């Protein structure tokens, strides 16, 4: 709405009078662009942080959230989605904010503890009640007649964790024989009837649409499905080997600077590492990194033999190039 000069003058006068008051309290809006299954986590966390920030500073913070496949979300930010913070599924997607958009510094991962991953997770197998197909480990997923639900690694961060976990299992099973590993993963993907774009889409496919015998899922997503989406209808199967998923977080410096929200955005992420932030993560089935909280929730999370991306695949940049770039192993083994 356009304002008349008189209106502008009156507003200016009013502002000059109320300036000392308004200087005391600000209305701040943050945009958190996140990946698919974090909806519930950040719904709880945003409310807690807003309350905490208002108590601490008097400023009112409204946090808007955007969720989708991690790769898609990273591209959206690069294309101009004004995120103040990005909380994505894997470090490669956050790296792209530097590589493609110079929106963050190159060493962004060193700015926060635990390589900027305030919580971790892993990949588990969610099966239907009674586990009718008798699925116990990764090699059950390549059997004929087993329908596996996982999203598309081209768009979903969770799917890339799934793929690499399966790859790591096959590598170990076949003693590093790449041809056999590829054959194994190819067979697994052949059993996937629908490739959703994100992890939440796959959960919908498995839980709500009743498709498939097993869902390759984030541990937190599997717990959510089991305890809240379909109580008593699903069981979690912990495979013999899985991967330590470290979803990273970062302030998107360029946009935060533009919005004047750098300090709040940093505080928002720092709060994830506090006891309260870690409690919220644990309650939403993410593995806390703060030892005291991790110990408190120890019984909630099953013991899993976890491999690490850096050790097994040489880090995300290398893994992305070998497996998920155009012509990578995923393109080689996946037949539509």
């Amino acid at each position, binding site marked *: 709405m356009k304002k*008349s000069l008189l209106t502008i003058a009156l507003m200016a006068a009013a502002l000059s009078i109320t300036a000392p008051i308004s200087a005391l309290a600000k209305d701040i809006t943050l945009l958190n662009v996140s990946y698919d299954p974090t909806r519930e986590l950040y719904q709880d966390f945003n409310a807690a942080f807003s309350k905490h920030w208002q108590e601490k500073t008097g400023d009112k913070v409204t946090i808007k959230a955007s969720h989708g496949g991690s790769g898609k979300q990273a591209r959206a930010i690069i294309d101009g989605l004004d995120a103040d913070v990005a909380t994505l599924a894997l470090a490669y997607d956050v790296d792209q904010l530097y590589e493609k958009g110079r929106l963050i510094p190159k060493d962004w991962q060193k700015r926060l503890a635990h390589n900027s991953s305030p919580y971790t997770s892993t990949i588990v197998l969610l099966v239907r009640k009674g586990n009718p197909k008798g699925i116990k480990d990764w090699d059950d997923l390549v059997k004929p007649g087993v329908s596996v639900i996982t999203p598309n690694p081209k768009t979903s961060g969770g799917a890339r964790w799934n793929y690499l976990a399966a790859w790591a299992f096959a590598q170990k099973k076949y003693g590093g024989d790449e041809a056999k590993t590829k054959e194994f993963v190819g067979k697994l993907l052949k059993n996937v009837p*629908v490739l959703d774009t994100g992890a939440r889409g796959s959960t919908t496919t498995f839980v709500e649409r009743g498709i498939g015998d097993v869902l390759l899922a984030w541990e937190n997503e599997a717990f959510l499905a089991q305890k809240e989406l379909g109580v008593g209808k699903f069981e979690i199967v912990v495979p013999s080997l899985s991967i330590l998923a470290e979803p990273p977080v970062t302030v998107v410096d360029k946009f935060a600077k533009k919005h004047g929200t750098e300090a709040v955005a940093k505080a928002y992420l720092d709060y994830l590492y506090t006891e309260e932030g870690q409690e919220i993560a644990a309650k939403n089935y993410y593995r806390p990194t703060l030892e005291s909280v991790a110990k408190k929730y120890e019984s909630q999370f099953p013991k899993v033999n976890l491999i690490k991306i850096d050790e097994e695949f040489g880090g995300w940049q290398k893994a992305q190039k070998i497996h998920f770039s155009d012509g990578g192993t995923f393109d080689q083994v996946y037949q539509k």
Partner: protein
Amino acid sequence: MSFKKKIIRALVVPMIAGSGVFTFSGNALANDSAELEELRALVQELDQKVKVLARKGEVNEEAAAAAKKDTPVVKASEKGFGLESADGKNVIKLRGLLQADYRSFQQGANDVRGRSNGRAGSLDGDGFHDANDTGLLRRVRPTIEGTVQGKYDYRFTPDFGNGNSVVVDAYIDARLDPAFKIRAGKYKPFVGLERLQGGGDIKFLERSYVTNAILPNRDLGVSVYGDILGDKLNYAFGVNNGVVDGGNISSGSEFEGNKEFTARLFATPFKDETNALAGLGFGIAGTVTNIDGEKNLNWTDSSAADATRNGLPSYVTNGQQTFFRYGGGIVADGDRTRIAPQANWYYGPFGLITEYARVSQDVSKAVGGSPAAGGAIVTPEGVLENTKRKLKHDAWQIAGSYLITGEDASFKGVKPKNDFDLEKGGWGAWELVARYSEINLDEDTFKNASGVNSGEFGATGTAATAAGLAYSDLSRSAKSAKSWTAGVNWYLNQNAKIQLNYEHTSFDGGDLAEGLAQATNANASGSNVRDRESEEALLARLQVAF
């Protein structure tokens, strides 16, 4: 009942029933049980396949919806053809304006005086040539325009009409805020109201003297403009190269370095109201500069092209016949200011536009002739002493229009209620238009340039000395032109229009008294001058614009 259960019942129940009627053996029951399991598995498999197909459909729909957000949109409508990014921030449009005219002169003359019969064809006793009936392409303007990054507009319009090939518009608009926009390039300076009306939207075939004769047409420069006070006041300030009256500047660098400043305020104070004044707009505009024409030209007054360098214009009638030009050796030599109050009013099918313009121009008599051709420069300024004079010309117009088919009149084009269509019975929109416009030149224009107080007009027989020439010769150029125009516009649809204008123009001066030979009376006294023959013309146009 679920789909699955229906299938089971349809397939299995008859089989069970059948088996019950014809066999009771244990083996048969066992076989049936195995068959039942197979059927159950088959149904479950089919059930999964159906669900997968449905889910794939959902996923594809989601993907299509997501892709739509990034897919450019192709647009084709009566407003042109274009391509637009999904977010609408980047746009390219192809538009066009084609005007095919025919001019039929019942009476009138063109301006070829001073030329020999050999060059100009058959001249009458007054040295005029009859105005020629002619068909012509008045405007042939393809336009590429659009937007980048949501707020930076561009427009490129060449014109291949009138036998020319020129860049009419080439500018960039930065819409930083509704109250603050910047336009840079070659464009219509924000001065004349009628000029700012689109070439395809004007009510008459030719604009009035205010617009065509005095106010600038196109100029090169930069303007800041915007809408303030709730869009009720439009302001514009510009710095441009500067252009002669009615001039369309070339797209190259200019001869004279001083800049012309323009300013305009235009108010539409009742625009948000619903009463009769809602369509009222009024304002005032002006230009100011200091301009010196080139002073060592090898003068000839038979070519209007000189105007591009001497800094002075020539003026034409509605039939586009030149009726005034400055004399040889006259150059712009100092200040040029213009002022133009203006107003329009649209109420229902009725439209009114009125505008006044006054130009004040310093002129001098240059020595003339390039040094190479024998011309001499006798003063450092290149002009004859005591020949500087401030000439003030003015023009005004009032024009009305009435849409007899009931459409609403507006500053922009007309959208017929019913397009012309013989099969469906639509007749398009019909509009009656009428205008009076006149231009009056400063009396001093026709006085001797030296001894300026010596009389109403230059004395007879002073042609022998260069100093004795007036700024313009009344026996060759009229000191006023008054035009009536009446016409009808037929809008076949939003894009096609047929226009017919009848115009009558009478002149004050502009011709030598009967019986006198032009060649021997370069500067006629009042007694040797008569009025130029009136111009009566029928002007017709077929226009397509999109």
